[in-house]
């Protein structure tokens, strides 16, 4: 018998929604999390993963305080998926120098609580020693440190932890209507995108954490909600062009960055007000050139690297108009739609990745108050799965005969789970085989994820494992992963081959806007494998174009 009644229904499987589900479940509420796609499949999946100490909003001291405290919490609950990166802000002119002062002061005030040094001002010589790829013409640089979290793993771990505390998590379940009764919510109507069935779930409390779709969900309850949607694009390069983060001024004076990320670097972001459906967006040529041109002043060699893809997301900013995007507050708001005549519906606007736990705590307090439950928030105290203990990477690599690099990369996704995954290879030694050579990912982790982390597609596996995210963008792993997916989920061959094409299509979405240089050769290899040799351009006949492929 499927459970249909819940204390609270959370809509949206991004950083905020999963954090809310976790908090509600930990406080003993019967909780349902609904996501129309996969966990972390929209805005949060396109961010750089920085749990920022408040770099861009020093004018809002309360928010900087909150961010700094949240960084401390994350380092307590999720240190296994966090890395600390040094960042340089190179200055080419005296005017660059003068803008650094306020930031340095605000940052340094709170540095000690995060266990990082205060902002340092470096000479050109010291700067170049730290990062030789910098433009030698710089006159100084500012040095500070920030923490970066794997945003996919964070959301997934929050969702899994919510499950462990009794929540139900349903992905590929789209809310099509909000049921109302006497000025209050009664539940939701959903469409199961896997089975094609519709059903209803009942709850008097609904948290709308759907980011750039929040106004559309609110509209289902006839509640007004305004957002300022803002598109941000990243360019991803095939190698670590720099080994420390670089923050600099863009052509229009905004701040942009170049962050080392796993085996790649992320160059971002743009900020464009948008009214498009977030599902259809791709990066534009203008955005790509804006970013490269801006970074080229301080990292002159940036064009030598191969652009492997672009990614773009939509920020659900608090509706503030007639100011530049940068001047819109980075705080968040919880809208209680009771005042709109819809009791029991709470919507989020605004917010940042680093605030997701804080946002969850705030809304869960409201939910508990409404339900008359007294329960303390523990999301800042209890570790997320995998962070229970240290992992001896070197010993595990030795024990299983797997490279230290492979095991360390697994550890950075998995923490203590690494041991369980490697243990699978005792019965199945062939599962030590490398499936994704770029990242690298072994077969045991693919199987483990399929059995424990409810992925439905190869793209879902990408979010959980990073398969297909490296320099070859899935050229050499997609067919291997498709076969494992088919085996584990007992898929028909037609479904498996369609799934293979779907993933190639998803990768192509990001690769196509920035095609140039050596990427053209990489793409010829893709066509050579999947069209020329495998004949999939003719064999798979029922391919349905994605929303961004509509004009095809």
């Amino acid at each position: 018998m499927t459970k249909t009644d819940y204390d609270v229904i959370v809509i949206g499987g991004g950083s905020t929604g999963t954090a809310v589900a976790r908090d509600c479940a930990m406080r003993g509420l019967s909780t349902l999390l609904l996501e129309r796609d996969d966990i972390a499949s929209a805005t949060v999946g396109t961010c750089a993963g920085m749990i920022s100490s408040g770099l861009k909003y020093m004018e809002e001291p309360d928010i900087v305080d909150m961010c700094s405290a949240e960084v401390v919490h994350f380092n307590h609950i999720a240190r296994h998926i966090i890395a600390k990166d040094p960042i340089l802000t190179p200055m080419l002119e005296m005017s660059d120098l003068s803008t650094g002062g306020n930031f340095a002061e605000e940052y340094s005030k709170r540095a000690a609580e995060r266990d990082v040094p205060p902002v340092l001002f470096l000479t050109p010589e010291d700067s170049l020693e730290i990062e030789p790829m910098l433009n030698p013409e710089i006159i100084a640089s500012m040095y500070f440190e920030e923490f970066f979290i794997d945003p996919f793993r964070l959301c997934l771990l929050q969702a899994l932890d919510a499950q462990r505390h009794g929540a139900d998590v349903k992905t590929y379940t789209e809310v099509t209507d909000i049921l109302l009764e006497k000025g209050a919510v009664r539940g939701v109507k959903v469409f199961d995108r896997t089975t094609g069935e519709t059903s209803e779930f009942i709850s008097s409390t609904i948290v709308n954490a759907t980011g750039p779709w929040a106004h559309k969900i609110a509209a289902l309850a006839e509640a007004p909600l305004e957002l300022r949607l803002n598109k941000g694009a990243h360019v991803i390069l095939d190698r670590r062009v720099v080994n420390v983060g670089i923050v600099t001024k863009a052509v229009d004076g905004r701040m942009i960055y170049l962050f080392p990320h796993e085996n790649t670097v992320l160059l971002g972001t743009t900020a464009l007000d948008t009214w498009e459906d977030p599902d259809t967006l791709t990066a534009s040529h203008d955005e790509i050139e804006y970013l490269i041109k801006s970074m080229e002043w301080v990292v002159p060699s940036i064009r030598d690297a191969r652009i492997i893809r672009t990614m773009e997301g939509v920020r659900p900013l608090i509706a503030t108009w007639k100011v530049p995007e940068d001047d819109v507050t980075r705080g968040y708001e919880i809208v209680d739609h009771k005042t709109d005549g819809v009791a029991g519906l709470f919507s989020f606007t605004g917010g940042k990745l680093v605030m997701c736990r804080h946002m969850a705590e705030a809304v869960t307090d409201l939910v508990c108050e409404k339900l008359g439950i007294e329960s303390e928030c523990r999301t800042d105290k209890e570790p997320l799965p995998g962070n229970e203990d240290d992992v001896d990477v070197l010993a595990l690599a030795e024990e299983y005969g797997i490279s230290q690099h492979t095991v360390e990369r697994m550890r950075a996704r998995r923490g203590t789970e690494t041991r369980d995954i490697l243990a699978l290879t005792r019965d199945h030694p062939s599962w030590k085989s490398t499936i994704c050579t770029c990242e690298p990912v072994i077969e045991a982790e693919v199987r483990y994820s399929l059995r424990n982390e409810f992925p439905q597609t190869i793209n879902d596996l990408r979010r959980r494992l990073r398969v297909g995210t490296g320099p070859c963008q899935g050229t050499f792993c997609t067919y291997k992963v498709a076969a494992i997916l088919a085996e584990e989920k007992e898929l028909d061959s037609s479904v498996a081959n369609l799934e293979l094409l779907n993933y190639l299509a998803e990768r192509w979405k990001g690769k196509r806007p920035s095609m140039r240089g050596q990427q053209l050769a990489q793409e010829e290899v893709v066509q050579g494998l999947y069209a020329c040799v495998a004949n999939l351009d003719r064999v798979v006949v029922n391919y349905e174009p994605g929303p961004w492929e509509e004009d095809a």
Partner: protein
Amino acid sequence: MELETDVLVIGGGMAGLAAACSAADAGASVIVVRKGHGATADSSGAIDIAGYLPGGNTPFQSGREGLRAITGLFPYHPYSVLGQESTETGSQFEKALERVEHSVNMLKKWLSGTPAETIGSLERNISAVTVLGTSKPTSLLQKTMLPPDWDDDSILLFEGFAGNPDFNAVLAAKTFMAERARVGEPPKKIADSELTLSPFGKPYNVSPVEIARHLDHPGGTAFLADSLSKDVERTGATHIALPPILGLKTPAENRRILEDRLDVQVFELLSFPPSVPGLRLLRSLDNTLAGLDVRILEAHEAMNYEQSGNRIVRVQCKTHHRSLDILPDSVILASGKFIGGGITGSENGLSERLFGLPVVSEDWTSTDGIRPQRLTRPISINSRGHALFACGVAVDMHLRPLDGSGNTFAENLFSAGSVLAGYNYPVEKSGLGVALATGVFAGTNAAHALQEE
């Protein structure tokens, strides 16, 4: 250092090697410079002549049918250029067919008795089976890769190897079975199994090249036969499909050992890189060239050239720690497309790397200043293909590249293979076929140009 030669071939894939072979056959002295092992070694080894029209879903029954359709529809296709010598209307097909047929016969001769011995013809396309269990039309296959005949009683076993994720027998068998059932043709019974071969020490990250080398060792194939016998017994298999691992040196002999010992028919599937048949093809052609006294300069990249009047007189090559100048009478540009590095592209457009030749699209319209993205479609894998992969240099009827005004760039510069514009090999399934035919023709033309002097 300087070297003189009759013919310099830039590029050592199928097009370059075919050009070198035919120029040497015609009596020219030949040097091949090769940057790396190129796209041919990474190919499945199948020589596709013509499988489909772009956008069409009905495969050609034969290379001949494909040539007729292509030369009739696409005047800028390399096959049409091959048919251009005659000025009579409607005879492009006949001439093209003659030249392609000639090149196929040459290839068969060059590969005769080598590990890449090839069979097939322009009279009937073969439905080759791939590691994904899909089928594709091709014209020529290495002997060990030809799918055997089967009937309603046949049982086909897809055999994979533990720790080699390049081939998943379970999904390949399912995909192949579904297709057979759909068209209502045998075999009607299909099985799959996975073998663990302990001689490799570790049962993971097993490379197909590693297995192939093992089978070439004395006793290696007999051991495989013993290991396979249980699966054959269990499934009652009459036929076995293997990933292409039957050896780099003696694949035919290795197959015979398996077939004799197991009383089954064995064939290899088309695979992705690393591709044992691709390596067999490249090595066999290299050996043929050695027999013709052609020098192959490995790890040499042509960097620059000198022109005198209307002729290329010098090509500067670079290798580790030194450079080398080659003084050729004729030059054949067979440097490939993006994989080979013959064509490069930036956000400002495409260009030919060495001579700076203008790059044109499939209908020979200029791509000058066009961003690569604009030459692609929103859907990655589609039957019409992306114009980007049909871009290359335009040529005259002797395969000499044209400059921006449509004139011959240099009277002694010829070109062949995927550096040419006008064909979209991933969707046409015409890659190695065009490389072979244009290679042979360019080589012959380069050699004839010498005699004319």
